Structure formats: structure tokens, C-alpha cells
């Protein structure tokens, strides 16, 4: 794995802006119950579009 996104689930407010910004399908998924976003790191290409869209700085590329 070269670069992938990591989400801080404590800060995430579930606004889904990252999901609308991600160019790759099925990377970010939204849990209806917890109202949080989670990531499938094996599908992530590490472009960082979600990081630049996140209003709460809950995401980072490592």
C-alpha cells in the first residue's frame, strides 16, 4: 500500500462531503446508524480530494 486515507471517527460529523468528492467508487462508505464515514483503505489511491473537502479536518493521507 502506497498512500491511503485515514479517518478520525471521533471528529467526523457525517456530512458526506468526502463521499461526493472521491473519484474512486466504494472507497468511502457511510454508516446510517452511527452517522460516520469509514474507508476501505485497499481501494484508496491517496489523491487527497476528501482531505481538502473535509470541513472538520477529520481525514488525513498517510
Amino acid at each position, binding site marked *: 500500500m502506497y498512500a491511503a486515507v485515514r479517518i478520525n471517527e471521533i471528529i467526523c460529523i457525517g456530512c458526506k462531503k468526502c463521499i*461526493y468528492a472521491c*473519484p474512486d*467508487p466504494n472507497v468511502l462508505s457511510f454508516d446510517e446508524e452511527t452517522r460516520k464515514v469509514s474507508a476501505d483503505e485497499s*481501494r484508496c489511491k491517496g489523491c487527497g480530494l476528501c482531505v481538502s473537502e473535509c470541513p472538520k479536518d477529520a481525514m488525513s493521507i498517510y
Partner: protein
Amino acid sequence: MRNLFQVSAAFEDIMPAEYKSLIENGPFGGDKGVTDLGTFKELLEEHPLCAGCGLALSLRLILASLPNPEHTIIVGSTGCSALAFPQAAVHNIHSLFGNQNAVASGLKRALSLRFPDVVKDVVVIAGDGATADIGLDMVMHSWFRQERITTIMLDNEAYANTGGQESGMSQEGAVLNMAPKGKNFSKISVPELAWASGCAYVAAVTPANPRKLQSAVRRGILAARETGSSYIQVYSPCPTNYKFKPNQTIEKVKSREKDGTYQVREYISDEAQLLFDRLEEVKNG
């Protein structure tokens, strides 16, 4: 609708997990849209397009906006988008470079003869090279003939797949790998061209506003079903050829919208407007 797609019992243990989840949790038969993204299995699967690709983002949003994915046939053409279609779970055809609207016209006519009782949407999704340069004659003649198809252009302002040549949709002065002196001519106004050619619905949108993009795609497809041709242009910047960081794609879209070099706009014919009003009334009861 879900019984259209089923895994045969004998193959259940060897079918890929992605295929199964597409059947169990896919957008077929439901009323899924871009606002539901992240909660269902998308029609697009892992694709080989670059990190931060604006075109991939637009394509993902377009596929999520399709009102009737199980009865939609996409006609693609050569270009970056053609690399993603083998991974899309929608019927799709790869046509010769520039031929996409001619192929789609024939397909739509054949489908309306073969399935007169079923609504089949034929959607052309091609790049700016295929739509505005190489296939402009086929595209414009399909509009002149009022073919019932939706043409969607993924406008990345270059021939991105072949190393970065200028296209008709590149802005004046755009410097690319294979246009080092900058482009000498201005960007073609295809939405105005489409409107003048008699399209019932024309829109220019961006992936920075997914809801607007969804409404444009749905309106385009509905107008194509009932009235005539429709055209939608989606600005999808290319980080690889325009040399910006992959995480700046959406910023780039917003800055172009802000300085007025890419204007989001919509043209609706009277007939199409009546149709949308009628559908809105039915929806609201």
C-alpha cells in the same frame, strides 16, 4: 426488478464478492441517487484512472444519477472514459472514435422497435475529443435529426489519454505537454451549439455540485425520452495533464466557476419545461 439479476445457485460459491454485493445492495430497481452514495454498492468498480481524476469523479456521479440503470445503455468512445467502462455494471458499447452518436442513434431506434413497451435510455458518455472534435459531425447530425438520446461530454479540456494534446475544448493559451506554445484558438461553446441545433435540454454542470449534476442528468434523460435530444457538459479537470496536485481538482472547478471561465448554465425548450412541470406535479401529488 431484483429478480432480473440473480446468481445461479451452482455458482454462488465462486462468484466474486463485488458481484454479489451489487445484486444484494446495488442501485437496481431502487430509487437511489447521488445523495445515497456511500450507502449502496456503486455501478462503477475499481478503475485504472489517475488519482484525483475529475473525469472519474464525474463518471461516478453520473452513474449514480441514472434514473433507470437496469434499462440504460451507455455508448462510449475512445478516451480516458473508455478505460473505466469495462468496470461499469451497465450495458455499454465502445464505438469507434467519434462514431458514438451515430451508433447510439441506431441503437435507440432498434430498441424502440424491439422493446416498444419498455423505456430504454441510450446515453452517450464520451470525452471532449470525441464529442467536440473528431465526432462533431455525428454529434451535431444526431441533434439535427432530433434523436432521442442523451449526449454527455466529460470535458477535461485535452486529449489526456495520449500524452496531452490540445483539443477544441482547451482554453485559449492553454499550455500542455504537446501544445508547448499554448493554444491559439478559443474554447468551443458546445452548449450554445447544441441549443442552436435544436436540443430540447442543454446543461453545463460541474462535479463540485453533485445535486445539480444529478438534476441535469435526470432532466436530460427525461427530455430525451419524451421530446428530443439533450446535451450535458461536465467540466472534469485533469490533474495529470494540467499539472496540478490531485487533491486540487474540486478547488480548480470552483475557481474556474468563480472567475467565469466555465459557466454553469442550462437551456430548456418550452416543450421540455412543460414536461418537467408535469412530472413535478405528479411527484408532489
